[in-house]
């Protein structure tokens, strides 16, 4: 059968980097093909070429046998290709219906915008995607999972028969993921070809007919799902066979650092009324406490409340070394030797204009002063330690932080906090968006820090991560603590049951 898309010898160079080198592979009509690769493997460059965002590349792309060269996204749409980006492109102030028809609004015979018709059609499209939302609601008020379906509805309304999805589940709850799988099945039943970009093996092996692996901009291979294994694919992605790391060695649990009793965080503008309700937990030195929960369960709010970064309207008791505390600013938490690595590195953690050294030294710059002024030598000496101990791979302390991979950026942020010599480390989904190899390194780092006597609270959107690292796991569901499981008791099954028990 003639391929619906054929990519032939496509190369793309950016100054100093080869993003894609002579990549060739094909997409058969109606198939679901997964593209796997670490961050920086060239997945997103390829996407941008297929969607007409990048226009100058070498090589050839054939759609339905005809060579094409898209110069803008509309060309790709016209050729029947739609892309669901990882970061969704929504005009948050406009309604779902207006977003679906953005740029090709339906009109009344008088030439005025026909909202009624658009809302009707949008409603039908969304209903067909198990997304029974009111199409008049502003897109910004929708949950991420619903926003994504609005984008898919838009693709459908464009009569797309090739859908490219870039890590579509990265921000979804388990229920939304299940719904997305059903939507994908339905689309495939209609004959839609799907290119599914992901590095989550369970998804890939569940959905894809064939798997294409990219590494360092090169095409490693395209293979049928049936004749390979997740482990083999992961090996191709990282170029080496990574053993499944387990951290089951006995850790030395120390004295109790943190004691939380009946923590309640009100949320007046929400019908539920609270973000956290009656949460109690203990954290000891030298242990990792995992916090599981679906998106919106209150994991981030819990950490922010401890760290003094959230609203200070909470009730209950937080005791640090037995003394009640209430932090009003992260500064106070720092002084009490608590550190927090925030979720969403780019938005809440990184300083893109500062170099690697300045990103690391930021919280402890006072230690690099000489005569009241920042000394370049002292700052370099200050950051050299954590750069070495966390294994940041950087060309030098004054390299641009934006040039590092996600994993190394995250190590820089952990380094920043280690310099404050914390006793409690709060990690909010620290491996999100980080590729497989770097994840294993971060696990080792977190385990080592814990063995050195830090008390760690770790949240994660991936259950295997918590099961790998944590000594105990507490489960939140809609702001309530629904289970506390020891390592022996915890299984994915039990955690999911508790996380969905509302």
């Amino acid at each position, binding site marked *: 059968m003639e391929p619906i898309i054929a990519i032939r010898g496509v190369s793309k160079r950016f*100054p100093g980097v080869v993003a894609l080198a002579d990549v060739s592979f094909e997409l058969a009509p109606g198939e679901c093909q997964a593209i796997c690769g670490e961050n920086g493997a060239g997945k997103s460059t390829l996407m941008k070429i297929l969607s007409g965002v990048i226009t100058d590349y070498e090589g050839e792309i054939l759609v339905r046998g005809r060579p094409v060269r898209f110069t803008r996204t509309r060309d790709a749409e016209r050729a029947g290709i739609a892309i669901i980006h990882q970061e969704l492109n929504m005009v948050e102030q406009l309604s779902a219906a207006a977003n679906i028809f953005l740029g090709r609004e339906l009109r009344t015979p008088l030439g005025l915008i026909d909202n009624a018709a658009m809302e009707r059609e949008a409603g039908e499209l969304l209903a067909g995607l198990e997304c029974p939302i009111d199409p008049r609601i502003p897109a910004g008020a929708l949950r991420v999972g619903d926003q994504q379906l609005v984008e898919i509805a838009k693709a459908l309304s464009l009569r797309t028969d090739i859908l490219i999805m870039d890590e579509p589940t990265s921000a979804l709850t388990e229920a939304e993921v299940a719904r997305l799988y059903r939507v994908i099945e339905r689309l495939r039943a209609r004959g839609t070809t799907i290119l599914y970009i992901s590095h989550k093996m369970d998804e890939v092996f569940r959905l894809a007919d064939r798997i294409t692996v990219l590494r360092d901009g090169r095409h490693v291979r395209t293979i049928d799902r049936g004749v390979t294994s997740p482990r083999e694919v992961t090996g191709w992605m990282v170029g080496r066979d990574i053993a499944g790391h387990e951290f089951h060695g006995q850790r030395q649990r120390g004295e109790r650092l943190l004691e939380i009793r009946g923590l309640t965080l009100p949320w007046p503008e929400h019908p539920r009324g609270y973000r956290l309700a009656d949460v109690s937990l203990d954290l000891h030195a030298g242990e990792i406490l995992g916090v599981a929960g679906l998106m919106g369960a209150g994991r981030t709010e819990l950490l922010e409340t401890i760290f003094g*970064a959230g609203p200070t309207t909470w009730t209950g008791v937080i005791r640090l070394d037995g003394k009640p505390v209430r932090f009003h600013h992260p*500064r106070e938490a720092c002084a009490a030797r608590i550190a927090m690595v925030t979720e969403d590195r780019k938005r809440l953690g990184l300083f893109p204009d*500062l170099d690697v050294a*300045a990103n690391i030294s930021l919280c402890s*710059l006072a230690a690099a002063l000489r005569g009241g002024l920042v000394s370049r030598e002292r700052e370099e000496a200050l950051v050299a330690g954590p750069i070495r101990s966390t294994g940041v791979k950087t060309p030098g302390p004054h390299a641009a932080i934006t040039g590092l991979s996600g994993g190394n950026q995250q190590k820089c942020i952990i380094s920043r906090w280690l310099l404050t010599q914390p006793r409690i480390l709060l990690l909010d989904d620290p491996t999100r968006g980080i590729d497989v190899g770097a994840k294993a390194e971060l696990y080792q780092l977190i385990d080592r820090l814990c063995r050195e006597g830090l008390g760690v609270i770790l949240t994660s959107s991936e259950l295997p991560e918590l099961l790998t690292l944590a000594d105990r796991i507490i489960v939140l569901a809609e702001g309530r603590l629904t289970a506390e499981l020891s390592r022996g008791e915890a299984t994915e099954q039990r955690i999911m049951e508790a996380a969905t028990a509302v």
Partner: protein
Amino acid sequence: MKPSGPPSRGWILPRHELALLAAIVVVFVGTGWLDPNGTYFNAWAESRDIILRNTALLGIIALGASVVIISGGIDLSAGSMVAMSGTTCALIMMLFAAPDDRRLVTVGPLGIAAGVGGALLAGLLVGTLHTWLITSIRLPPFVATLATLVGLRSFARAMCVFVTRERWGSESQQIQVNTPAFVWLKEHNVVVSVAVFLTLAVVTWLILSRTVLGRHLYALGGNEQAARLSGIRTENVKWFAYCFGSLTAALAGIFLMADSSVAQPNAAGRNYELNSIAAAVVGGCSLQGGVGTVTGTVLGALFLRLVIDAVSKLIKASADIYEGMIVGIIVALAVTLTQFGQLMNAGGRLFPGLRGLAAIPTIAVFAGLLSMMGSANVEALRGRTVPFGLAVGTLVLLVLSAVRWWENRRTT
């Protein structure tokens, strides 16, 4: 060219500053060479003083603007702060002068200290007000300082009218300042204002690149939420930034008052707010925040004043009239050039599609009209301004069309 954002380290100038320095040399040499009157040779001292004095005044305010911009904010109120500062200084001195002294000749050292101190204090008060509006009331910086831009000048006028009526029994919209100390300052204006400007530049450089506060300013401008979550008291950092911005404007206001021997709340310091922001931007500050250097801003201010001076010499027109156009063109050009590399790397085009086609005649018409008006005072072109303007317009039209044609060929 990428403007250098992080604290500049070492002595090697980054590319943006080097390019600015080169542009300054080119403009300077070019003006000296092309000026039909040879002003730079015949009246060097006078030209030098004009350029230095104007650069120092603009530069002092631009340093404040840079700090605010690097911290991720904007201060639109500098021009009004200049007026407010001069007026405050004059009014306080008036209270220390003899009751019938309408030229403020009889002000003693105490009165001068009180006047200058009061003016600087006004700067701190306004900076604090900005910070409160921005951090507590959560107004966007643009709105908060827009309010003071409009409000402060009017406030200064009202204050002037009120105090003169109370003190002298007759209202006045301006106050003569012939205090001996200020007359001395006027005579030594160039040396003093340049010295103050350079000292302030060194202090600002030290703060920005060698102190914890400076690092926090860059961090705040680069990513405010991350800065807060890193334990930085972002409100306090902003407090410093806005106070520094208003304080520099207040300082410049005192020099401007001395320079013109009059406190004129109605006219003093108009346009300084925008020109100082322009100098900072030409110097490489990014209005997104987190990016900018003191060296860049100093060079940016010098470059702006130099070009304004050059144009007024070459076409023999009043610098006032052309100033706005020059600043506008330079800001647009400087930022275009800093982004040119990225634009080209991304496969971007200068004149894409219908918009690009429409922009070509627009630019040509402006270029033609500008050259026509500019040639009016040039000896060689007397009486031939219209053909000259037409010729320049046509030339620009042809060149830009050729660029577009070339772009089309390259991308298809």
